[in-house]
């Protein structure tokens, strides 16, 4: 290329060559623009523009039929923090996020460790993975009847104890969120477990062997060798589940459809209810903005943590 030529050619020809290279590079860039244009346009118009509009809307007074053109300052946000529904929804969402991070991980990790060297591993993996392929709507519809007063769980309890049992799992204030979280875990355990199995398989065997030779117990091996090396996968799984925990909607909307307090079961549901059932469009937009900020903040923190962990592993 240019280096070899520079030994043989005069400066003028070199300059020409470089100019030609720049032109080719520029032409390539212009072609590249053609290739990325559809993606940029689609994402810009349908994903980025609405976010901007959402932020703007949250500063209007749009409610039911009117008020789109009236500026409201921060009053929607002030209302958010003054209304008890918001703090309830916030509390429930925090519950969801913690539950969505911890529970699938705990269950999936146990299963992964158990299934690590088992025969028929592929069958088990596929079986556990199957619910993830199903729609949350479908899963919610089935589990609605599992939790119904005369549904599967109560029938089993009645069968075991011999007394009729018709507790309303998704009607009682204390059990409605945990119940739906259990369904969420049921649906997510599969994919979490498969990812953890992948992560476990990638851990090199030598350090473990060496530790065993030194007489370390399984627990110590796990804590000091396996867990730190598994951490990147755990963080990936966490990032995936955190977003789901913040924004779960389908499951809640379908399963808790008869629960009177359903509007505060999570911020996502609260936003939907305020916008689409109550007609508080601007207010709902404000809720969405708050939700968005929280999701981005937590995801960014986790991503930063993940890159730190990966660096330290190297």
């Amino acid at each position: 290329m240019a280096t070899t030529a520079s030994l043989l050619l005069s400066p003028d020809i070199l300059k020409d060559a470089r100019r030609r290279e720049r032109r080719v590079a520029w032409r390539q860039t212009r072609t590249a623009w053609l290739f990325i244009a559809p993606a940029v346009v689609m994402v810009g118009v349908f994903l980025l523009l609405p976010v901007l509009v959402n932020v703007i809307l949250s500063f209007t007074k749009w409610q039911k039929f009117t008020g789109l053109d009236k500026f409201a300052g921060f009053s929607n946000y002030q209302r958010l923090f003054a209304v008890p529904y918001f703090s309830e929804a916030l509390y429930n969402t925090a519950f969801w996020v913690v539950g969505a991070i911890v529970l699938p991980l705990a269950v999936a990790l146990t299963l992964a460790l158990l299934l690590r060297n088992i025969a028929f591993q592929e069958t088990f993996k596929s079986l556990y993975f199957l619910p993830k392929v199903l729609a949350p709507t479908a899963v919610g519809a089935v589990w609605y009847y599992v939790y119904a007063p005369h549904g599967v769980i109560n029938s089993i309890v009645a069968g075991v104890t011999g007394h009729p049992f018709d507790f309303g799992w998704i009607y009682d204030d204390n059990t409605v969120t945990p119940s739906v979280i259990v369904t969420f875990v049921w649906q997510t355990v599969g994919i979490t477990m498969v990812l953890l199995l992948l992560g476990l398989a990638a851990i090199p065997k030598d350090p473990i062997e060496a530790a065993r030779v030194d007489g370390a117990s399984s627990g110590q091996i796990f804590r000091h060798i396996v867990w730190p090396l598994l951490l990147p996968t755990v963080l990936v799984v966490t990032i995936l589940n955190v977003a789901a925990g913040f924004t779960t909607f389908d499951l809640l909307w379908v399963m808790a459809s008869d629960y009177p307090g359903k509007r505060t079961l999570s911020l996502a549901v609260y936003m939907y209810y305020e916008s689409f059932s109550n007609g508080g469009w601007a207010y709902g937009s404000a809720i969405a903005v708050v939700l968005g900020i929280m999701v981005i903040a937590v995801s960014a923190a986790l991503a930063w943590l993940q890159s730190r962990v990966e660096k330290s592993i190297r």
Partner: protein
Amino acid sequence: MPVDLSNPAFVQKLIAEERHRTRPPGRWILLPIILVTIAYLIPFYYLFVTVFKTTPEYAQKGVLELPSSLAPFIDNVVQAWTIAHLDQAGFSSFTYALCSGALAVAIAAAAAFGMTRLNLIGANGWFMVIFTGTLFPFQMYLVPLLFGYQRLGIINTWLGMLLLYTAVCIPFPLLVLRNSFSGISREIDEAARIEGASEWRVFISMILPNARGPLIALFLLQFTFIWNDLLFSSILANGIGVRSVMVALQSLQGTYSTLGPNVVITATLISSVPTVLLFIILRKYFMAGLQLGTK
């Protein structure tokens, strides 16, 4: 025991431990797994037992009791099919999933190609722009999209849903394909360019065939995502001819539902068939798709 490879007792102990370790797990470890798996599968059992019951039968029998015959299944299917308009909803969903999924992956592939194989100035910047599309929760899109679609008159239309689903499904495939394309050796396109092939030819004939695996896996993931969507369709395309299959399913749960759970569960089964079939047949690609997602 101190580590001392010259000590035969120690070496014997090592060998014994190693044999013990590498023996496949005994039956006692299988037991808790089987128990957990059975508990895990109970909802499926409930589903299969319910779709064969008639409405009065469901009300009278215990929910986990076996049905008396397989015959009511047809009736349940017919009811679910007609009342929820599953034929129209299924056709709509299938169109959305197929067209938008394919289109999104194609657009993402083109963009990935532009970012990795061509000298795009500021490629990382462009990537970040597109990737921020995935950062925001869907709730932030809903109201502006509803209002915008109303204004443009594309609410309750196939076009509206196709455009939205395509846009939503672009960022993740782009992320994956960008990594994937970066891994393909540069010599292939250099060779083609020297032969005088246009960039488009290079894209179609050289790069795409090398990324078949990821492309198919990504299409499957997007197809499943679109098929399973409830939120966007319920807001933007709720009419009977355009609604997605999940919205149709949810409508069976509404106020005016006088259907027994057997019909609702049958509808759930019907609406899950395509994705489950795809999963069974193309399981390898699904699992591959997972690995792509974690890189």
